[in-house]
């Protein structure tokens, strides 16, 4: 029983001893140890910074989706690649408002929907103008789907919609750029040679994010009916389902409904597309994976170089301490004990490099997070990345420390003691 216990106990004691010795050795050769581990430091710093940036970006995107609404479904016209609709012209592909007329009754999982149009026009107020402002036609239900509050004035009503009044909502950016007063209700702006009365100011998009950057912050909203009467533009729709979990059912209902209203026969391909936020998340994940793979390759190379450095310094260490090894063997250190000592030293050296790397990575992360408008302000190093870095560092230590450690373990004690 005692013998059974003695062996693992001896191992633990030797391990602790080896760690103490290794720390002492590193402390005694501070400069050398630091320079040696620089490869590991750079590798770990790079990987943690990249992971931190991606994690931050992901958190940002997820947060954006929450404000954006994870239960939204985009309904977009789509040209099929095959089938008889391939040769159809755009009149058949585009949506018509009447195709959505009784959508809410037919699709029980859909809570609300809004038809949308979007075009880019110059907006005037007196001598001020904005080129390329985004002009959006929306239903009043848009206010329930988008979580964007009306700061001043009122939202659109059914009256605006039914009469096709030339009224508009603007974002604060439009107001400021047109040099309008803070309270600009009742003022008139010119959009596409027509005069619109401002009835409210609606808050701008979330800034600095993936989706905020995709669109202009200079938006003018007009009733959908008004836009339709003026331009008969291409339209798309945004629907929201009652619960995020109902997304799949809602999509199925929509598809069934739209195939009917668009008079698609059995076997005909869809002439529309349904897009949900998850799709975007998926493509983001794909990009993130690619970036991680590239960063991983770079890090792999730098760890390899770092590992060779570790091996080199360990060989130096073994040859410098040949007499010590000889003595340790003479007093009864088994080859395995010597192996352990030098292996632990290499691992501790690498972990030390890993620690330095994580600290530098943290510094880089803090700097990245301060870059304005990069969407990286939420960058942070997740705990698993810390674990991963230490794991990698330790692996490099084992891999590249093994050869010098074996060399030390195999030294002949007599020759080692004779070594000068």
């Amino acid at each position, binding site marked *: 029983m005692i013998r059974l216990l*003695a062996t693992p106990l001896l191992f633990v004691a*030797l391990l602790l001893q080896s760690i103490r010795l290794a720390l002492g050795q590193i402390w005694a050769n501070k400069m050398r140890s630091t320079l040696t581990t620089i490869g590991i430091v750079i590798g770990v710093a790079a990987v943690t910074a990249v992971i931190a940036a991606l994690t931050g970006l992901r958190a940002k995107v997820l947060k954006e989706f929450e404000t954006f609404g994870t239960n939204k479904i985009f309904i977009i016209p789509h040209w099929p690649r095959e089938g008889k609709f391939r040769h159809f012209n755009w009149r058949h592909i585009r949506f018509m408002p009447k195709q959505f007329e009784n959508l809410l009754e037919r699709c029980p999982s859909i809570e609300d929907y809004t038809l949308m149009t979007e075009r880019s026009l110059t907006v005037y107020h007196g001598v001020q103008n904005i080129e390329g402002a985004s002009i959006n036609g929306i239903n009043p239900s848009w206010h329930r789907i988008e979580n964007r509050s009306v700061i001043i004035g009122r939202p659109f009503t059914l009256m605006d919609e039914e009469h096709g009044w030339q009224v508009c909502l603007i974002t604060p950016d439009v107001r400021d750029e047109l040099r309008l007063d803070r309270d600009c209700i009742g003022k008139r702006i010119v959009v596409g040679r027509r005069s619109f009365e401002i009835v409210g100011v609606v808050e701008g998009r979330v800034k600095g994010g993936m989706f905020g950057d995709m669109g202009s912050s200079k938006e003018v909203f007009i009733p959908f009916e008004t836009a339709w009467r003026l331009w008969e533009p291409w339209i798309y729709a945004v629907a929201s389902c009652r619960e995020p979990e109902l997304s799949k059912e809602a999509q199925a209902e929509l598809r069934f409904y739209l195939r009917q209203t668009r008079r698609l026969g059995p076997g005909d391909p869809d002439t529309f597309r349904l897009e949900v936020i998850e799709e975007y998340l998926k493509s983001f994940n794909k990009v993130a994976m690619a970036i991680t793979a590239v960063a991983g390759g770079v890090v792999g190379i730098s760890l390899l170089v770092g590992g060779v450095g570790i091996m080199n310094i360990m060989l130096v260490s073994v040859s410098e301490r040949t007499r010590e090894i000889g003595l340790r063997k003479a007093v*009864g250190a088994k*080859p395995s004990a010597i192996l352990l000592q030098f292996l632990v030293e290499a691992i501790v050296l690498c972990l030390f490099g890993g620690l330095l790397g994580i600290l530098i990575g943290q510094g880089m992360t803090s700097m990245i997070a301060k870059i304005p408008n990069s969407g990286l302000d939420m960058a942070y190093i997740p705990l698993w990345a810390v674990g991963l870095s230490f794991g990698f560092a330790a692996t490099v230590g084992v891999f590249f420390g093994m050869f010098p450690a074996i060399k030390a373990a195999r030294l002949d004690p007599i020759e080692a003691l004779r070594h000068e």
Partner: protein
Amino acid sequence: MQTMPQEKTDRTVIRLQDVRRIYKVGVERIHALDGIDLDIRKNEYVAVMGPSGSGKSTLMNILGCLDRCTSGTYELNGRNTTRLSSGGLAHVRNTQIGFVFQSFELLPRLNALKNVELSLIYAAGTTWLSRRTRARETLVRVGLTERVKHRPNQLSGGEKQRVAIARALSNNPSILLADEPTGNLDTKTSEGVMKLFDQLHREGQTIIIVTHEEHVARHAERILQMRDGQIISDERTGPNRVTPPSQEAHHE
């Protein structure tokens, strides 16, 4: 393990039978040890003498289980060591042999106490506290009560060798092997160290000293003269104590 007849196991610590050690240098074969037969009993105080190249260092290495003989058998405490693995030899060195070297071989970064603890680190079943206690006791035994927290470079030559002897004794070895222990010391300090060996001998320790100095060898009670890998004379110069005064248990 080979058991020896009962009346011999309690006395004989070392038994060499026709031990040869042959080195190959290129095509030449050098007989460093050429048929050594030797029995050393418990509590014997042996000096091995001879010119350089006579094979005394090789004998020392074989007795200390640092090296294996090419042929012949070496029994230590009745146990044949000839076929042990390097790990097995390390275990034997750890539990049964204490080395004292000419150049002390203290680790410069460890203080005296830690240097003494060194061999105990590699022994199974020792705790930090038991190592510390044992190291302190052994240092007291070699007459070093102060300066135990000093590093080797802060100690005098005599003190260094005392620390080294304490390290050799810390695991309660069956044999204490000293290779020119006074070679790096002045005459006065040498006398002090030799007195320590005498004292250890009186306490029952089996001691083998390799030396080429006559006055060192005079302390021993048995002198082996070597030449060309052979023992050419084996004379007893003092009374050989058959029964040690203190009954210290030597564990394997």
